[in-house]
């Protein structure tokens, strides 16, 4: 009997150790704090987050917010650069702890990662060439219309969703000016463009802005979606922390303040 009790004790201890080990492994926050560094994966998308062309340092709305999160945890911030295609796989591969970016919480991505609650929403303008005959949004659903957008992003997938008859061209380059330039020069007919980027564009290069025409004003933006951050599915504590963090700054209105601030900075930057 004593022997059996010993075995039970051993098994229970082992299980307890194993469980605590797995739980500890899953609780990212103490791990980050022990490490002293919060690693955040980011893909380039000004003004949300992107490297300043002159200094090379990452800057933007999400960089500020990531810094805040790191400060709360009492650790340093390290931005790990990634591309839009490698952003999610890199998270799964544990190259970084979380992803802070203007990520749209799509169902396909949700199969692989957990999304936080949305921290911001924005909708889209649809821009066409200023010489174009298109005047209203409904005219866009025709096979004569070609949309352009960066491949892998929602600017490419939403036109397919909303205007199934139209053609969509995906561009592989990260350069916004490049694919908006397509609409400006008449290579493509239309594109989804968010209001902030449009403001930056028209301020930085008015001549380019004049070649574009906006079909819907800011009061009737198309397909407003939520942007969210992403964590690995097993990091539930981190997810909860981020959600609380997000709720907090959304309550303060920081997400709007920061967003407007950064759009202003980039528009004025010269």
């Amino acid at each position, binding site marked *: 009997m004593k022997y059996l009790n010993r075995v039970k004790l051993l098994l229970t201890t082992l299980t307890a150790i194993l469980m605590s080990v797995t739980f500890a492994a899953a609780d990212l926050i103490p791990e980050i704090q022990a490490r002293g560094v919060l690693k955040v994966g980011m893909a*380039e998308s*000004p003004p949300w987050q*992107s*490297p300043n*062309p*002159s200094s*090379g340092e990452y800057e933007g709305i999400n960089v500020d917010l990531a810094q805040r999160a790191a400060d709360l945890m009492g650790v340093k911030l390290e931005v790990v*650069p*990634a*591309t839009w*295609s*490698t952003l999610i*796989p*890199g998270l799964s*591969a544990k*190259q970084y702890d979380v992803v802070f970016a203007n990520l749209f919480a799509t169902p396909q991505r949700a199969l692989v990662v957990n999304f936080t609650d949305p921290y911001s929403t924005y909708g889209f303008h649809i821009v066409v060439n200023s010489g174009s005959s298109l005047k209203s949004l409904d005219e866009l659903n025709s096979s004569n219309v070609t949309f352009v957008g960066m491949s892998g992003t929602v600017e490419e997938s939403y036109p397919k969703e909303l205007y199934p008859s139209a053609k969509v061209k995906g561009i*592989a*380059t*990260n*350069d*916004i*000016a*490049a694919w*908006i*330039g397509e609409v400006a020069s008449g290579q493509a007919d239309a594109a989804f463009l968010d209001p902030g980027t449009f403001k*930056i*564009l028209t301020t*930085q*290069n008015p*001549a*380019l802005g004049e070649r574009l025409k906006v079909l819907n004003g800011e009061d009737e933006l198309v397909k407003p979606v939520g942007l969210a951050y992403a964590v690995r599915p097993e990091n539930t504590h981190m997810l909860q922390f981020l959600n609380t963090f997000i709720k907090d700054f959304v309550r303060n209105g920081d997400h709007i303040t920061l967003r407007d601030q950064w759009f202003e900075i*980039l528009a004025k*930057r*010269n």
Partner: protein
Amino acid sequence: MDWSVFTEFDFDVISKYLPALLNGLANNILLTVFGFLAGGIILAIPLALASLSKYRLIRWPTIVFVEFWRSTPLLVQAIWMHFAFPVMTGLQTSPFQSALIALVLNVSAYCCEIFRAGILGVPKGQFEASFSLGMTKTYTWLKVIFPQALKIVIPPLIGTIISIFKATAILSVLAINDVMRAAQRISSYTFKPVEVYTTAAFLAFFVGLMITLAGQAIEQKYRNKGGRLSGL
């Protein structure tokens, strides 16, 4: 024709972001040098020797490797290195590492062929003569064959440098900080693609020109010296 794009050329944008472009260009040059030294020389010579080995077990895998890396585009190799290799092995390399590895392997395959041609180009008689004079195999290789092979090898080898430089621009797809990426970023910030890409093209052409002219000068020198069996 809308020449306004050029008449209203915004030079301020260029002067502000020129350092960023030059920084990117410096990375291209660094990659070129590293790619040439690591791939074109350090890796290529053993590969060439392996491809001439009398052991089929060494020769065949080497030849397959070299042919494969010569017959596929660098773009595909770089993307494969960064996206497929991690899935296969679980090792995720950073964009810079993937780009560098793909470049070095690509260059080594090319230069391996050059060294092979060089070694094969040394008249067979040299081997026999050296052995009959009582020189050991190692001595023969080092003092007799290699110097002569070098003369055959150097002109095409120098020629590959400009190709390597041009290839580094391809690696921008992996988001490394080269001149193309810098140009894309600046264009995204300023929405002035014409100014930015034109400047980038000129800068790259300038460096390419320097490399080409230097290469031609060196090749001329060797063409004048070559063709003679000196150095014995």
